[in-house]
């Protein structure tokens, strides 16, 4: 069994290294194929492990070797395969296999082909470490590892200024969050004396609530970074600078869900601090709405999808925060499938449109690219949560949770967001695939992607459709580890009303989107129309001016402050002081050397002067000694 574990874990690494061998050399298909195969292997072994875990219900726990050991601290490279991690493993390996195969086609014409695959596999490896580690330190390794890989992959086209900028932004924002996580880890160590999951969680109930609260908060700050929760969300949209497969794998399916995974993993902790849980849930709900709203108007296909990812992450956090960890995990899984599908579809479209991203410049593509059209539509339906696709089961469940837990505000927000989701996703579909062939104006001749790319996507398609069917069996499995809370609305009536109501609401949103965006008279907006000048639109298109704010008041400020520190403080104050002290002596020398005029009589004068000075001192002192008694009385007379 351990064999499968290690295969699952290390074959991506091998793949990455293999591709790295060709790093400098010109493009070779082999550098793409081998890693893909190895990932397939990894996926299979994960599948086997899943079967094992599902079947026997026992979990696998291995300890490879020591990492750090000093004082009381003892951190091994330990890996655990339990219900939660195996889920993640499946998701990660599956999606990444698909993406790899897809990317062979997608990156076909790219000079950095080999490099790309080495990065991509490296990412998968780090992600596996992240989900498989049995302690927080190991988690942190993966955590930073995926950060690094996302930096590499977002900035993959480093010659683009915007790309490398986005990469750095992503990395630094994540670093901010990671600090929180690090502090959380320290807290855990100094209070529980270990970083192993079980042992730490075992001790936690005995700790005071406020310590636990701090732990929860700091860990969640870490999660916020990776999962791009408000206010650390801006990097995700910019991360779309990376190649589309990257967006599909990292910024939709896997890495961004790491935060959710962390919260789920730490459920014993969050069980103890419901207040923090509630906060997480509320933030999740807020982000869901917030992101969806930005998705409404955006004119960059990939950014729209990115925002929808953000909003779905909000859903997951909402669920996790409310203690429905398995629900969150379930949605995570489902979302991974259909969102990856969506992105890859978008990738096809981009290829077809020569990297054109503005859906307003497309339209009517359904004729030329049927396969992609089909897939993206289904993915969007799933995303919208229409019965019986994956989205329905997972998302509806979250709504139920919110309702059952009597958090009606959250419930309403999420419900409303569901509508928005449906709207913007079909706005996209409509603009891309229906209506007039606006692309003709730009002299583009779109074409369908390679067959094998579509085939590669098909597993996702399948899962996007049927994933919901696994709900119960999944529930059975995962609740061995997670709190098994069934969420059932008490009266069947309310349940049906809710469900059907939601469905209708969503359906209406879809229809409205279609009606609005398949009209004949849709033109590429030029900033003149009334709607575009409305305040709301401006607010949304500028992402609530948050990036602007960051740029102006944080980045700029930081740069200027450093400038000041260097030129003013470091040079003008600190260093100047040091040189000043040296100069004082030197200048004293320069000034007083005239004393050495070289004239003999001056010298004699100095000598005599010295003697006279001494004499006068002596006389004063002598007199003082002689009349000391009198002086004393005199002074006492003065009352000294």
């Amino acid at each position: 069994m351990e064999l499968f574990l290690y295969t699952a874990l290390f074959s991506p690494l091998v793949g990455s290294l293999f591709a790295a061998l060709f790093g400098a050399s010109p493009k070779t298909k082999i550098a793409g194929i081998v890693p893909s195969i190895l990932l397939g292997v990894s996926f299979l072994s994960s599948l086997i492990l899943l079967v094992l875990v599902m079947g026997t219900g026992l979990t696998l726990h291995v300890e490879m070797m020591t990492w750090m050991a000093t004082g009381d601290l003892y951190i091994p490279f330990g890996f655990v395969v339990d219900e939660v991690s195996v889920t993640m493993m499946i998701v990660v390996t599956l999606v990444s296999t698909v993406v790899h195969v897809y990317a062979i086609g997608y990156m076909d014409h790219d000079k950095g082909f080999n490099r790309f695959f080495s990065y991509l596999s490296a990412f998968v490896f780090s992600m596996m470490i992240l989900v498989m580690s049995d302690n927080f330190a190991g988690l942190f390794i993966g955590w930073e590892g995926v950060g690094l890989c996302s930096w590499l992959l977002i900035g993959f086209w480093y010659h683009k200024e915007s790309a490398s900028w986005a990469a750095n932004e992503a990395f630094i924002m994540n670093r901010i969050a990671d600090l929180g996580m690090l502090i959380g880890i320290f807290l855990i160590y100094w209070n529980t004396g270990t970083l192993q999951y079980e042992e730490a969680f075992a001790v936690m109930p005995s700790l005071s609530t406020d310590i636990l609260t701090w732990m929860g908060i700091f860990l969640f700050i870490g999660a916020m970074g990776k999962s791009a929760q408000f206010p650390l969300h801006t990097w995700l949209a910019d991360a779309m600078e990376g190649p589309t497969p990257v967006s599909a794998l990292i910024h939709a399916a896997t890495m961004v869900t790491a935060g959710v995974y962390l919260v789920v993993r730490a459920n014993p902790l969050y069980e103890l601090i419901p207040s923090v849980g509630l906060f997480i849930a509320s933030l999740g709900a807020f982000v869901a709405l917030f992101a969806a709203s930005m998705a409404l108007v955006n004119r960059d296909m990939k950014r729209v999808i990115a925002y929808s990812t953000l909003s779905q992450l909000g859903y997951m956090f909402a669920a996790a925060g409310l203690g429905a960890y398995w629900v969150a995990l379930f949605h995570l899984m489902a979302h991974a499938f259909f969102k990856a599908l969506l992105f890859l579809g978008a990738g096809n479209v981009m290829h077809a449109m020569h990297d054109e991203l503005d859906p307003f410049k497309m339209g009517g593509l359904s004729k030329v690219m049927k396969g992609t059209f089909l897939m993206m539509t289904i993915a969007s339906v799933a995303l919208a949560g229409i019965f019986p696709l994956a989205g329905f089961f997972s998302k509806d469940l979250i709504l139920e949770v919110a309702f059952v837990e009597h958090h009606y505000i959250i419930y309403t927000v999420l419900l409303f967001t569901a509508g928005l989701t449906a709207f913007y996703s079909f706005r996209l579909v409509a603009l891309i695939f229906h209506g007039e062939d606006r692309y003709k104006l730009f002299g583009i001749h779109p074409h369908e992607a390679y067959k094998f790319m579509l085939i590669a996507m098909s597993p996702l398609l399948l899962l996007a459709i049927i994933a919901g069917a696994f709900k119960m069996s999944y529930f059975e499995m995962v609740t061995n580890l997670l709190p098994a809370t069934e969420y059932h609305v008490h009266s069947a009536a309310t349940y049906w009303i809710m469900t059907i109501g939601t469905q209708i609401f969503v359906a209406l949103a879809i229809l409205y989107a279609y009606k609005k965006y398949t009209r004949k008279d849709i033109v590429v907006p030029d900033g003149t129309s009334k709607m575009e000048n409305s305040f709301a639109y401006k607010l949304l298109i500028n992402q609530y001016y948050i990036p602007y704010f960051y740029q102006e008041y944080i980045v700029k400020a930081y740069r200027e402050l450093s400038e000041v520190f260097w030129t003013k403080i470091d040079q003008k104050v600190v260093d100047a002081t040091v040189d000043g002290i040296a100069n004082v002596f030197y200048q004293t020398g320069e000034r007083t050397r005239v004393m050495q005029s070289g004239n003999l009589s001056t010298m004699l004068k100095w000598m005599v002067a010295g003697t006279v000075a001494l004499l006068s001192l002596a006389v004063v002192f002598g007199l003082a000694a002689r009349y000391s008694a009198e002086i004393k009385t005199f002074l006492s007379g003065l009352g000294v």
Partner: protein
Amino acid sequence: MLSPVNVSIESLNLMTLVPMLIPIVGALLILVIDLFKSEQDRSLYVMLSLLILGVDFISLMDSASVFHKNGTIMGVFDVMLIDGLAILSQFIIVGASMLFIPLALTHKRFHEFSYPEFFALFLFMIAGFQFMVATDNLILIFVGLETASLALYTLIAMHNRDKSFEAAVKYFTMGALAAGFFSFGSMIFYALTGSVEINQIAEVLSANKYADIGFVLVGVVFLLASFGFKLSIVPFHTWTPDVYEGSSAALAGYMSIVPKIAAFIVAMRIFEFLIHSGVVWLEVILYIFVVMTMTLANVWALVQTDVKRMLAYSSISHAGFVMAAILIGTTQSNSALFLYWILFSFTNLGSFSMLWISRQKNLPAHQQSDHSYNKFAGMIKTAPVAASIMALFMLSLAGLPPFGLFWGKMYLVSSAITSGYTVLALIMVLNSAIAGYYYLKLIVYMFMREPIMEDSGHIYSANATLPLKTIIGIAAIGTIFAFLAINQLLEFITMFVYNSGY
């Protein structure tokens, strides 16, 4: 009818005079030789005086062993006083002189060395210094001092350049003034106590509890002034740089060591009993002097453009540094003084000899002075060995371990700490930090600048001969491997100093 003076020859115990008589006799011998056959080559005289000094050194060893056996010896109507200080300082004096004499065998001909008088005077001077340290009688101190000084003035003048005459005159005039001060000061003490023997003065003063302290202080002031002149304490130091610059480098090096140690001994004898008998005023004044001398001399050395002048100031500052020992006045500090001075004499003589061998007959056009910094630019390229040795001496002067002077510095600072002068200790170390700059300056010129003119290389050893190189070699070895000798030196010195009650 006069009653016959009956003084047993033993009670005179003339042995105490031997170390002084040897150089005197030697000097006379040299003169006599010249009388019979003049126009001898200088090497003869050099070797003769070397021999004489050697003998003198041996006799010193002898008296050292005597002292080792039965402590301090008085002699010749208790005028002579052979105690540890006397012996140690004479070792230094004679030793340094032995290192100095061979420097006369230069490659270029400097005509002072062709006169036998030079060597005669030199030996007289040594005798003078020996008298100075080997007595506590103010008269004899005065006589010794003046004998030595007068000889020294002449030696300087014999270098026979405008500058050397100027230097001689300056030194002479101020020396005369200092002599006046000394005699006046001793007159006051005589007036107060009716004696010119330091230990008796001490007794009398402490007997009447320093009744009229005011007059004592006046006396002290004048003695301070005269010894301040000898030790070049600021503000009595003004002669030093000029005299050093004017006289030949070798002699300058010599002057920075021997006259000072002699003066230090006397200062020790006079001032320490005063300090110990609680003349706070003197303590304060000495404190001020020490700090002023160290710091100001350093500060002036910073701005020098001529290496020799820089070394002059640096030796002023070193003198100030060592003055601290007298101020502290514990056995440890006094032994530190000797240790320091022995190591200093090696290093300083070495560095001045480096200047000496790089001495051209007449000034090249592009140089404003004999030993301007520029002259040494890029020396590492043209004369690596010489440069390294010079750098070695500079580092040692800067007090960088493990070279000679570091140990002296360390021990002295430690003595300051052990007797509670913490602030003084800090000032001392910070001063050596400042001093670091100007020693470094020379190293920078030698190692990090490009040579000014390419032909050079030979100019750094223009004046070198085997004897000179040997001397420098000895100095260098003494400086590098000092740390091996420190232990023995320390034991030896401490024993002598302690047994002579300081």
